[in-house]
């Protein structure tokens, strides 16, 4: 029993990261039509920003939680303004290739500077320890990660579905040219959306730092699964990416309990099945 709940908790933690990352990917793909391959590298950058902040500048976890996403978001703004913007008229493939190239560069730079090994990041004092729930031991930091990720996802969903800002985003996703002809500064919207999407990745990176080792490769191992999550949920579906992210994390956890050897492939098996049955994804609109 304890083993099952333990695995489900690990699944939920992973699912929280899948959800945060695929949410950003979905928002970016929806509005910019760019498959942001560099999402994983920017998640890693967020984690390193927290780590460097702590070691070089003494910025604590709480500061990093705010500053690292901001830094990553700014980096995103620069990437969009100087590079991505030039590719919108072209096929998606070019955006994918550009962001893939950026991934190699960013990861290469961190490899060069920090080598391959992981760097530990301490759990902040306030969130150390945990409590025994009877059926499982719940580390406080892990509970925090799940609660905050879900809260951030739900808040993003709320903003997108229920506010005026979100209405701009939805309308821009449908028809950016027309939205601009109505007087909305769509180019700035694109920049800020990319910045926000990658800031979410940076935020996930900071959250992940105390759980996983901070290392240059941490993003690329995660992003492959996240892409599978996005495909399963439906490219561009906001709600779909949140639910699918959490759900697949749980499925992975459950598989680890029931049949550990399949745990790392189950997501891809589901992806293949979904592609066969519903090519637009579970929550995507069938074209």
């Amino acid at each position, binding site marked *: 029993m304890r083993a099952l709940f333990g695995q489900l908790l690990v699944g939920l933690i992973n699912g929280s990261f899948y959800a945060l990352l695929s949410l950003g990917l979905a928002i970016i793909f929806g509005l910019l039509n760019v498959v942001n391959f560099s999402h994983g590298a920017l998640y890693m950058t967020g984690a390193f920003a927290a780590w460097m902040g702590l070691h070089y500048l003494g910025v604590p976890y709480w500061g990093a939680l705010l500053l690292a996403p901001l830094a990553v978001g700014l980096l995103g703004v620069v990437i969009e303004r100087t590079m991505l913007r030039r590719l919108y008229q072209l096929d998606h493939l070019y955006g994918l290739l550009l962001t893939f190239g950026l991934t190699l560069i960013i990861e290469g730079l961190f490899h060069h500077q920090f080598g391959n090994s992981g760097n530990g990041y301490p759990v902040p004092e306030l969130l150390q320890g945990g409590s025994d729930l009877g059926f499982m031991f719940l580390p406080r930091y892990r509970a925090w990660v799940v609660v905050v990720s879900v809260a951030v996802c739900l808040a993003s969903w709320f903003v997108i579905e229920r506010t005026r800002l979100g209405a701009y985003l939805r*309308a821009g996703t449908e028809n950016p040219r*027309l939205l601009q*002809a109505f007087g909305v500064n769509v180019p700035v919207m694109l920049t800020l959306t990319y910045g926000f999407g990658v800031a979410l990745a940076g935020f996930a990176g900071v959250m992940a730092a105390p759980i996983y080792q901070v290392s240059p490769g941490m993003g690329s191992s995660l992003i492959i699964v996240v892409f599978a999550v996005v495909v399963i949920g439906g490219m561009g579906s906001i709600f779909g990416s949140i639910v699918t992210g959490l759900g697949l994390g749980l499925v992975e956890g459950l598989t680890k309990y029931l049949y550990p050897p399949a745990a790392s492939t189950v997501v891809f098996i589901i992806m293949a099945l979904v592609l066969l049955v519903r090519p637009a994804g579970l929550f995507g609109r069938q074209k």
Partner: protein
Amino acid sequence: MAASAPVLRIRDLNAFYGESHVLHGVDLEVAEGEVVTLLGRNGSGRTSTLRSILGLVGRRTGSIEIRGRETVGMAPHRIARLGVGYCPEERGIFASLTAEENLLLLPKVGDAGMSVQEIYAMFPNLEERRRSPGTRLSGGEQQMLAMARILRAGARLLLLDEITEGLAPVIVQALGRVVLQLRERGYTVVLVEQNFRFAAPLADRHFLVEHGRIVDMIPRDALSSRTEQLHRFLGV
């Protein structure tokens, strides 16, 4: 017709979609408070003229002045903010927004915007349907919504592309009453129409468009004497 400077002055406008050259020197002037139509056969370049005014074509050369401001080279959102409202041919209602979100979406482009109350008085159906997803509305309701949102935004120069297309006669009549009301309130309207019977009583002047050019103009009072010419031109 007002004597003031034109709201819209187009000189030698050429427009291109990629390699294809669709407008070949359009000249057009519309005065404040005027209602004009662009009449022509399919593919003559009427939609392209409206899209050029908004900066929605690939490339354009020549001059398009809106209230004296040159707009060739301006980004579309800046052009809209000069008080231009656009009803596209395909209506452009956003499916992922409710009717009311569609109505409230547009930023203010002028300070003469109608209040939501005025809008609902003018288009009572929209109030009933305000929580429905935009594209669940009937064709007529979507057209009303497409008009309503630019009026709420405060546009005073309205570019309306085939607003009667595919709609039932009662709805067409209702739209006619709306355009008449706008005319009385001093809006400037450029109407692209196939339905000449709809457009005739509304407009001050009719511009005939052919092969991406304006080839003739018929003022309202010459209409009866030139009906036959017009019918021949439109091929009806």
